[in-house]
């Protein structure tokens, strides 16, 4: 879908991290966790391209003001890293942005009864919140392993806990949770009968993918790539598939075939 969305709120939840709620049409309620939005931050040519963000939440509320019934919204959680996100962070209630959403392939939640293990690094937590919400709604047992460089990078943990998710935190500098990599904490807990859903920096995903393959635990990873179109047309966002070689190339579009992949679909270094 493509539509003009009104910014409902845009709040700094941690230094340099913002959570933005935007109005959406009713159909968006069927978006799958792991899908993403492509957002044009202004209607100028600077920045030129849309920016991709995972769906942090989708829901609905009844606005205070008259004349609007139930309002469906979507949320993103983003870190200010450059030109586009800086402009985003200055938007206010009432501003309009142009959205493409829901894009890509989301998480497959798997059979009931497994333990659902969510692993997120920094802003990689964003799509996991919407996933956790949906999983809890299905009555699943959900554990979250959250990592970051320091406490400011570990976002919205209270929100996860409010859903009933058991959370484990690790930071590089030990300012929150254990000191070290979240993958170390994860390794201690991991066992059969679990299913992993991971999103974060590539080195983290790399470690998680390898760990899961060793233990035979099914694992889905949400990847990032530089994107232009978001719809599988420009072929800018490709990643190497598991069987890729220079002779028999096998590229996957992160925007269309992903951003969520089964870890064994991709080539890990």
């Amino acid at each position, binding site marked *: 879908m493509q539509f003009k969305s009104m910014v409902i709120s845009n709040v700094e939840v941690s230094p340099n991290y913002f959570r933005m709620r935007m109005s959406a049409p009713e159909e968006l309620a069927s978006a799958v966790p792991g899908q993403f939005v492509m957002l044009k931050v202004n209607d100028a040519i600077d920045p030129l*391209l849309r920016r991709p963000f995972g769906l942090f939440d989708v829901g609905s509320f009844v606005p205070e003001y008259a004349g609007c019934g139930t309002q469906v919204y979507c949320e993103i959680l983003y870190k200010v890293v450059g030109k586009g996100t800086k402009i985003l962070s200055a938007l206010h209630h009432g501003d309009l942005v142009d959205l493409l959403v829901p894009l890509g392939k989301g998480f497959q939640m798997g059979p009931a009864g497994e333990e659902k293990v969510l692993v997120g690094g920094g802003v990689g937590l964003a799509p996991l919140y919407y996933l956790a919400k949906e999983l809890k709604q299905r009555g699943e047992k959900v554990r979250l392993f959250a990592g970051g460089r320091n406490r400011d990078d570990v976002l919205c943990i209270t929100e996860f806990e409010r859903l009933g998710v058991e959370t484990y935190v690790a930071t590089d500098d030990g300012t929150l949770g254990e000191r070290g990599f979240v993958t170390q904490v994860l390794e201690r807990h991991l066992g059969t009968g679990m299913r992993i859903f991971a999103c974060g920096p590539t080195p983290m995903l790399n470690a998680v993918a390898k760990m899961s393959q060793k233990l035979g635990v099914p694992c889905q990873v949400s990847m990032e790539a530089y994107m*232009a*179109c978001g719809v599988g*047309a*420009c*072929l*800018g966002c490709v990643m190497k598939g598991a069987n890729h070689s220079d002779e028999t*190339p096998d590229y996957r579009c992160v925007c269309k075939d992903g951003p969520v992949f089964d870890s064994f679909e991709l080539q890990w270094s």
Partner: protein
Amino acid sequence: MQRPDMSVVLAGIPMRNPVMTASGTFGYGAEFADYLDLESIGAMVTKGLSLKPKAGNPTPRIVETQGGMLNAIGLQNVGIDAFIEQKLPYLKNVNTPVIANLYGNTLEEYGEVASRLDGLAGVAGIEVNISCPNVKQGGIVFGTDPGAAKEVVSLVKRNTSKPLIVKLSPNVTDVVLMAKACADAGADALSLINTLTGMAIDLDRRRPVLANVTGGLSGPAIKPVALRMVWQVAKAVKLPLIGIGGIMNGRDALEFMLAGATAIQVGTASFLDPSAAQRIAQEMEQYLVEQGIESVRSLIGALEA
């Protein structure tokens, strides 16, 4: 006033309006079906097709620049056979002309792809991308040498009965010379411009941003160069022209028509707005209504200069 006449005929291909989608920016059409009505635009051009499937370049393949973007996709495509099997059936059901964009790594490949496409129902015409290096000739780009361009175009012409559009490279000293060479060799129409070769550098990593080092610059940044080239070629060559380069809205499109284009292609704009091609056609029509212009064809080459 009744609705203005937006139709044009390009090298024998009738189109409901002058708006085409540019090769490599519209996939194989289906990718955009959710965002616009494929039957609202003039024509669709496919991603560049080669004889064999092509993997393309390593990543990163794209980067934004100021007012534009660089791409070094490396002409990744499914190959001509998969196109015919997997993509064309869908396109045949869309009532909009499909132009197959093709290229080769050698002279012979150009000829073979063209003959493979000849006679295919559902392909209204072919657009030959000559901005490719000739691997047999030390990598010199066909489209920057009038002799090589002439050879490619003549060969393709012998291998096709379809309308033949040749897409010109802007990375040349004299685009008119290239246009004339292609015209002489039998092109039925010319499209211009392809991307300008550019580069972006990641200062902190001290490396080129693109894995391929250089890439093709597209988007609003290149529009002035594209307009200039269309105007120069229109004055010198009698063939119908397709204007391409940084077209973002109806006004941009009409400027290219004034400069001499019979039709235009929308490229990078489809990334910013997947409904761009349809919107641009509407904006063009709207402008005609406001100005009381009856036919869009009356604007072709109507620049007073």
